[in-house]
């Protein structure tokens, strides 16, 4: 009897201990005590050694109440916090001190750099983004043509919180090609590769009046180490993306004097072969293999079906070749190896690379660059031939 009593009291004591100690109370926080970050932006401050931090925080309490009350449309669904500081964490703690909620970084959708900061160099600010437990490596990066603050504080017509908009925008682009979405780890990998030039998508706000502004992507920002040195246009970006292969859904516009057609890229793969000819000369062969369907046709009324397919085939090949070549020329003008050819040499010919790495930029500029294309058109959509062709034949 005594034994059972003793056992029972020990059991009770242990239960109590478990209840008291296993709750993890130090780190426990209610969700409403958090400011959930949806986007962060970094601009150059007036003093070039300092940065201007903009944090976009979703306004949870607002959204909660708006489900009951009719929305006035005027409500702010997000709040913007600003700080000027020489390090990111100092700025963030400044914001935290002057605030009743703590910032939570887990759900940050996008990180933006203002174009001035990008030109000034971003490497020293990446440390915190890598080190902090809450900061995540898969968050996409982008450069803003203008100030990141403006983009984060704008209210877009389709999605009031621009951070969420940008997050899903890059998510969609990543379905076309994963190289549109530049994550922190991709950027770091490029920086660590000697000779390779990191890239980041560049976006800007249209010059419309307030509340009608939209976000457009204007190309890719090209970096040398961590400093932005130039930018690719949208067409050149397309060439860059194609040259990396693994493109799924994308459009290709071909036209000549007979007509115009939009082809859907179903699958585009690109094999690259980088061969150093000697210590000064490198040859690059890209072989693109693409599968298309016909998306839209205008004109081509004089051609028969099989002729047309062959004709489109030829046009598509030329178009791909030209687009990729244009991207290469743009990279050459910037003296930036955005394609990562140097990585290929470093990986497959490490001994040659040791001799080349000191003057890689000169070697890159006169690379022998060849593109071969193989195209097949696998379908014509719901139509066999276009309306215009039908009329002509009759």
């Amino acid at each position, binding site marked *: 009897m005594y034994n059972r009593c003793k056992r029972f009291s020990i059991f009770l004591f242990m239960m109590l201990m478990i209840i008291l*100690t*296993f709750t*993890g109370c*130090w*780190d426990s926080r209610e969700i409403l005590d958090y400011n959930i970050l949806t986007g962060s932006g970094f601009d150059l401050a007036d003093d070039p050694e300092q940065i201007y931090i903009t944090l976009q925080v979703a306004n949870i309490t607002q959204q909660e109440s708006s489900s009951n009350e009719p929305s006035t449309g005027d409500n702010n669904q997000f709040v913007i916090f600003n700080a000027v500081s020489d390090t990111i964490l100092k700025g963030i703690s400044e914001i935290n001190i002057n605030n009743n909620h703590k910032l939570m970084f887990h759900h940050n959708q996008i990180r933006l750099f203002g174009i001035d900061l990008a030109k000034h160099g971003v490497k020293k600010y990446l440390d915190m983004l*890598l080190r902090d*437990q809450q900061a*995540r*490596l*898969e968050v996409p990066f982008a450069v803003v043509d203008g100030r990141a603050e403006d983009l984060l504080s704008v209210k877009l017509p389709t999605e009031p919180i621009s951070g969420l908009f940008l997050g899903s925008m890059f*998510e969609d682009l990543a379905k076309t090609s994963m190289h549109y979405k530049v*994550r922190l*780890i991709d950027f*770091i*990998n490029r920086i*660590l*590769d000697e000779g390779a030039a990191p890239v980041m998508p560049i976006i800007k706000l249209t010059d419309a009046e307030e509340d009608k502004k939209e976000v457009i992507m204007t190309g890719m920002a090209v970096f040398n180490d961590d400093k932005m040195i130039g930018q690719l246009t949208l067409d050149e970006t397309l060439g860059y993306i194609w040259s990396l292969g693994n493109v799924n859904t994308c459009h290709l516009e071909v036209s000549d004097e007979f007509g115009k057609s939009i082809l859907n890229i179903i699958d585009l793969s690109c094999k690259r072969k980088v061969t150093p000819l000697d210590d000064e000369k490198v040859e690059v062969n890209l072989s693109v293999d693409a599968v298309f369907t016909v998306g839209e046709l205008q004109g081509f009324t004089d051609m028969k079906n099989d002729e047309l397919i062959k004709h489109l085939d030829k046009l598509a090949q030329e178009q791909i070749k030209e687009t990729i070549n244009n991207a290469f020329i743009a990279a050459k003008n910037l003296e930036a190896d955005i394609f990562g050819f140097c*990585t*290929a040499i*470093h*990986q*497959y010919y*490490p001994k040659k*690379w040791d001799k080349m790495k000191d003057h890689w930029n000169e070697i890159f500029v006169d690379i022998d660059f060849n593109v071969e294309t193989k195209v097949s058109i696998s379908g014509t959509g719901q139509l066999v031939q276009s309306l215009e062709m039908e009329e002509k034949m009759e």
Partner: protein
Amino acid sequence: MRIDKSKISGTRFMFSIAFYLHSSALLTSFLSGITKQESWIPIIMGVILCIPLVYMYRTIMVMFPDKNLFQVFEEVYGVVLGKIISVFYVCYFLTLSALNVTDFGDFIKNIGMVETPHMVFTICCVLVAVWAVRNGLKVVTRYSSAFAFIEFIIVGFTLILVINQINFNNFLPLFTQPLMKYIQSTHIITMIPFGELVVFLMFTPCVEKMTPKQTTKYWYKGLAMGAIVLLVVVLRDISILGNAIHLFTLPGLVTLRLVQMGNVLNRMEIIFAIAVMMLLVFKVTLLIYITTIAIAQLFNTTQYKYLALIIGVFVIFYSPTLYSNAIEHVTYARTIEPIIWTLFQIIFPLLTIILAKIRNLSEKNKSPVSIQEV
């Protein structure tokens, strides 16, 4: 004299070895900082070096199937010298337990509970461990086979999750680093964790009678199962993180953070966290059990149950004194630790075998059923 009366089967012994090695998948940053994207090379070399090492442990087990390591020492070196060596080993076991307890605390701090004091995690972990130890080896190793399977499944599953991001070019270039780096990291991987298998010699008498052939089989199967997981984990991390792998303290965690399969299967690092916690609690339990048995053996007592809690408390307070931060830990693990460990994991066992052979002490020479060869 047998301290712990419980017996475990050979299969369970094998899974315990495998599981013990799995738990070191957390510590790959010791390697990745040195050999970077080629860290899988030292692992393979380590496994090859381990084959004679494990044969050595297996030989001790076969020569003295009814004695634990300390009894073997007393038999081979005599009581006084044997006890002195045993004291060193007790220090080694204690340090090993304390290191793993600290790893456990650091890990949880690293994955999210930043503000909670270190002590809370270590106390929770050690309490569970002590509870298991008091119930004997059977309880300590009971879940090893189930957990080893779970670990296999988790590693396989995570491999599928990251399959869309794997880039095989990340393994290149090969053999570009100075030879010394390969030697250093091979030494590290051979000592931590493969050499640590020496702790399993402490419970030889608790394993059911095995023929030498079976002993060999269980040791090597356990080693193979553990090494495969270790290798796969490192290969996975390299193929995902590429040239940035040396930046991170927990490459496995970072890799799983990158998982993105649609909008549903992402942020899967919690799987890794669960696996690691399971592994580390098991490892700590096993090590505290071994320390307890070792101390009981040192003082010739069978009342090890009363010792367990004291040792647990000692480990809790010993662990924060080992090093003050993660950088110190990594530096220590890369430079001093493997060299000190060599003493306990290679030199003493080897010396013991040689002396035992010279003095012809093998137990089976005395027993009438000595047909099988060593």
